[in-house]
């Protein structure tokens, strides 16, 4: 059995150690391939190595079938990353989830992010039946029962003790009803969440208001909140997120800035436009991180640069967050 020395930590994962030591944490994201090609994971892992305290491995993201998050997470850890495996309630019932959690722990994984999961109608198997046996809050509770009580959800004892996971959950300050969002975060905290990663932030005013309410409720003292950021790829992508993606808000300022940087570049010069957008996207992201560091209650950032993992190093460097701390013990 895999044993983990806790030394007073809940799990002793690197992410937990960095947060517990009071450092401003950095997590990133690695999307597994739509194939069984381990090399893809290794290449992405190389881009992220040293830039993040832990890296989310997505679980059939946007309901598109990909290499399993646990398998990709193990490959990522072989490459020197600490994985946070994402687990959605869409594809598995409570039996399969607990089985996979035991397996993940046996393979050395120590962080899990509990999600409802994007609806299957957005993915490549819209005809599939979803599961939703339990929801994301109940998944958090289940992982906590495994860890803290050494029991399965049904109450049966786990021989040799339960798997120890640092428990993550998501929060979306841009979903409605806005007034309820801090309270839902409180519910997730009460359920046993150790860290929160938020939806991508492109509306700083709304996020500030959200955090104000969260801090007023004292939640920032009970759960580590990592603010979600990601570099915009183009003005079109920004508009698409504003208009088409449910639960997202994008301030016009960002769209205008992305439009402005290509104003003097002819449409035919696609290469130059893409380069200008890339630079601007990264610059905006770095500025956002600086703004987020000033917001009370923000314990770190979660950088989502899916299929643009190269950007992460530039962003973390640009934000002055390199090198990442190494916590001994």
């Amino acid at each position, binding site marked *: 059995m895999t044993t983990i020395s806790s030394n007073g930590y809940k799990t002793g994962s690197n992410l937990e150690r960095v947060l517990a030591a009071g450092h401003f944490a950095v997590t990133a994201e690695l999307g597994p391939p739509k194939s069984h090609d381990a090399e893809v994971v290794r290449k992405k892992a190389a881009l992220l190595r040293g830039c993040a305290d832990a890296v989310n491995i997505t679980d059939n993201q946007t309901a598109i079938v990909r290499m399993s998050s646990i398998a990709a997470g193990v490959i990522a850890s072989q490459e020197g990353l600490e994985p946070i495996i994402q687990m959605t309630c869409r594809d598995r019932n409570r039996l399969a989830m607990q089985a996979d959690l035991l397996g993940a722990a046996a393979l050395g994984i120590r962080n899990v992010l509990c999600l*409802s999961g994007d609806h299957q109608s957005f993915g490549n198997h819209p005809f599939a039946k979803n599961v*939703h046996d339990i929801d994301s809050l109940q998944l958090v509770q289940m992982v906590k029962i495994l860890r803290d009580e050494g029991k399965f959800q049904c109450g049966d004892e786990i021989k040799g003790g339960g798997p120890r996971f640092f428990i993550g959950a998501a929060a*979306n300050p841009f979903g409605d009803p806005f007034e309820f969002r801090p309270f839902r975060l409180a519910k997730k905290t009460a359920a046993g969440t150790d860290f929160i990663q938020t939806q991508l932030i492109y509306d700083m005013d709304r996020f500030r208001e959200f955090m104000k309410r969260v801090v007023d409720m004292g939640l920032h003292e009970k759960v580590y909140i990592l603010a979600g950021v990601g570099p915009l790829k183009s003005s079109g992508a920004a508009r698409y997120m504003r208009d088409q993606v*449910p639960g997202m808000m994008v301030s016009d300022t960002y769209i205008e800035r992305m439009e402005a940087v290509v104003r003097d570049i002819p449409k035919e010069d696609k290469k130059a436009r893409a380069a200008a957008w890339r630079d601007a996207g990264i610059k905006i992201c770095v500025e956002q991180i600086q703004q987020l560091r000033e917001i009370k209650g923000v314990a770190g950032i979660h950088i989502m640069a899916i299929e643009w993992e190269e950007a992460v190093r530039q962003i973390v460097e640009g934000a002055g967050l390199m090198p990442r701390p190494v916590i001994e013990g």
Partner: protein
Amino acid sequence: MIVAEQKPLAKVKEMLEGYQKVLVVGCGTCVTVCLAGGEKEVGIMASSLRMATRLDGRSVAMDEVTVQRQCEWEYIDPLRERLANYDAILSLGCGVGVQTLAERFPGKRVLPALNTKFMGLPVEQGVWEERCQACGDCILDLTGGICPIARCSKQLLNGPCGGSQNGKCEVSKETACAWQLIWERMSALGMLERLMQVQPPKDWRTSRDGGPRRIIRDDLRLPERYEE
């Protein structure tokens, strides 16, 4: 009520391939109210099939009858004596009606003309919407009378998910977010603190996947049934 809609005529016609004498059976209860399988719809369905089969050069005799409730033996038993005249029954009842006929008249081919959709209500003329999935363990007391099992795309008990925006579900702009509605209702009732309780995982044993569910009420059973 149970809400159903008719299968496309071509599909019904295809099912009737090879049959010469068909009894079209409507139902006077739910499917009459949702305008899918009552007396009037039976008439239109039978006429349409007569025309459609005639165009194909076939001649199918089609008689019509609508019983008050297809889902109870006593209402369909009177059909028994007529059945020798037909080689198929086309039911315009819900799935329960079709099965009641098939179970009572096992020697007779019974075909469904409807797709049974859900339990719901007409929200406006010509529009029906689901309200209940018969999960068998009602939680409407917790959610302000709005069911997240039937109305949330993810059946969340601790919603809303991050995809709720402007009152709409992430799955479709046509779909109201059940949890937005729950929030508004509980807010109006001054009962928001109830939403702060983390709802435990649902016991689905009362719901699907356990074979047909039964309710047994001994206070209503007849004495001879006890001895069976």
